[in-house]
């Protein structure tokens, strides 16, 4: 029983990381239908932001708290810049954005390697987050609990933003029907850039969270990006609810399979499961209903 609970907690915490990463992705993917492979590098930028802040400030607690908004701004600006420079030009060619942003991600990785060096670097976690609590025989690492809480906070924050603010209304309008939003007087180009800023900023904050679970390096983001895309695909593009359910489901499935088989077999089984799932719901768990044929 304890084993099952321990494994489940591991699964939930994998899910929380996936959720943090997929959250920004589902926003940008849902909005413009573009696939941003550089999303992983925005995560990396967030992680290195934490590293740099800690180097210059020293105190782990203050630098972590400071890193969250700064990483949001850094990664968000990078995202907005990328959108302005490249993605808006490729608007009608979504598949090509995948390759173009992959090229950008290659360059950003190399840039990180040139600035911070190829080996991974380690940040110190604040004392408060290094320990663990024990509930009913289950050991819960504080850092994992923090990530879980932070991921949920981000979900609620984003959901509230989308639901209640005027910007959120505009974003939803563009996701649901871009042409109609355009003729209704919404500056869709501007909404796109803002969405990209928020989505990339979320990636940056995910990067801050990743510094708590392990060393960070130039390929930090890339390791998660394929999994995060699978979350978006299974959850349904542009749907927060789908991303939340899928992230936790995939995390749990992964950790249970890893326990009963091996890491590599678990990966393969999860992929087979996803392809099987798409037979049942090709458009993902939740879909934006449209009248379009495709």
């Amino acid at each position: 029983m304890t084993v099952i609970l321990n494994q489940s907690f591991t699964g939930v915490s994998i899910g929380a990381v996936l959720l943090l990463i997929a959250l920004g992705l589902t926003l940008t993917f849902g909005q413009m239908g573009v696939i941003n492979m550089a999303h992983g590098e925005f995560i990396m930028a967030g992680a290195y932001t934490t590293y740099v802040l800690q180097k210059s400030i020293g105190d782990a607690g203050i630098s972590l708290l400071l890193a969250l908004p700064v990483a949001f701004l850094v990664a968000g600006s990078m995202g907005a810049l990328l959108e302005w420079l490249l993605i808006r030009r490729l608007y009608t060619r979504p598949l090509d954005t995948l390759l173009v942003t992959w090229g950008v991600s290659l360059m950003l990785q190399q840039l990180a390697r040139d600035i911070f060096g190829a080996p991974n670097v380690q940040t110190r976690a604040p004392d408060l987050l290094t320990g663990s609590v024990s509930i009913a025989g289950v050991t819960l690492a504080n850092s994992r609990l923090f990530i879980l809480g932070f991921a949920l906070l981000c979900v609620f924050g984003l959901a509230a933003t989308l639901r209640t603010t005027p910007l959120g209304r505009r974003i939803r309008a563009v996701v649901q029907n871009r042409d109609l939003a355009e003729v209704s007087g919404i500056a869709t180009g501007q909404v796109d850039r803002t969405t990209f800023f928020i989505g990339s900023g979320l990636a940056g904050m995910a990067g801050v969270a990743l510094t708590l679970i392990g060393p960070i390096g130039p390929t930090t983001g890339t390791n998660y990006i394929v999994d995060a895309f699978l979350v978006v695909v299974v959850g349904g593009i542009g749907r927060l609810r789908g991303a939340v359910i899928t992230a936790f489901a995939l995390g749990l499935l992964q950790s249970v399979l890893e326990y009963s088989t091996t890491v590599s077999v678990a990966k393969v089984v999860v992929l087979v499961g996803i392809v099987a799932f798409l037979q049942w719901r090709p458009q993902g768990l939740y879909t934006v209903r449209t009248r379009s044929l495709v």
Partner: protein
Amino acid sequence: MTTTSTPPAPAPATEPPAAPQAPPFLSRFRTPAAFLLGAVLLVGVAPLALSDFRLGLLAKYLCYGIVAVGVSLAWGRGGLLVLGQGVFFGLGGYAMAMHLKLADAAATGETLPDFMLLYGTEGGLPWWWQPFANPAFALVMTVLLPMAVAALLGVLVFRRRVKGAYFAILSQALAAALAIWLVGQQATTGGTNGLTDFQGFFGYDLNDPVNQRMVYIIIAVALLLLMAGARQLFVSRYGELLIAVRDSEERVRFLGYNPANVKLVAYVVAAGMAGLAGALFVPAVGIISPALIGVVPSIGFVIGAAVGGRASLVGAVLGAIAVAWAQSTLSDAWPAGWTYLQGLLFVVAVGFLPGGLASLRTVLRGRRKADGVRTTKGVTT
């Protein structure tokens, strides 16, 4: 539709602007002539002019060229962004490598390949290794295995109309999963090191330069034959249908065809070509490992085609060979510089020159649209 059916003439044509009025007699022979010239250069001149070492490198690049033929078919003509060609390249490569390993072991009187003895594999040879001792089975499998995997994924994905970005991501995830799986099965697949150190090739000594030249000739001939075959496929009725599916899948469906089958054929054939390339890569280069077939190399298979011109067969193949050449030349001397250049190539070629270098002439002239590459609004969702 008609303008897209023929790839641009590969010959260094210095045709006047009034191309349509060119003498039909000459233009009819331009493609076969260029093909013949390429064949003479590859099979006749290159083995004489190049050193053993350079010829070995060329053999490696030509393997990537064979993959590019498939990429040009599936992506350039069919609009299927195949980001997982590494999977098929790897399946073909491992099928061949497993046979070579078993043959080497048999030659020295062992029953287990050397690396298995080293890792102390328990329970003897795994059951899925055993059939590969048979050379005919292994050869057939180098092509059949990738095609079977592609057919399985293709049926599942295309039937349910999973397409565009979804398909690209799934094929990419497949590459990641296979690479991770291979690394995890150290004792039976060689793990991160992969399979390497082959001695013989169907009874011939692989370390003999003469036999290496023979391998090169086989690869060059395979590439030429596949290019000729692919060209025939492009100009056939099926080739037209494939372009129609790429440009407007719904319209093709309304006309009574099943786009799923059309895409499936392109995907499966491309997978078979990648498998063959992988199988030929093993004797030519002497290694197959997860690092050669994961996500990054899989995307690498696409970049050459993108730079050269995805819709143009010759452009895609030449692009793949040129990029592979640039990679091995530059990445040794200046690794960081190569990575930046590779990224830049992606951005510029895909973002600003979607027809690749093959379309440069038409783009500069600014008259015709870049050949073949036509994207319809909203192709993904």
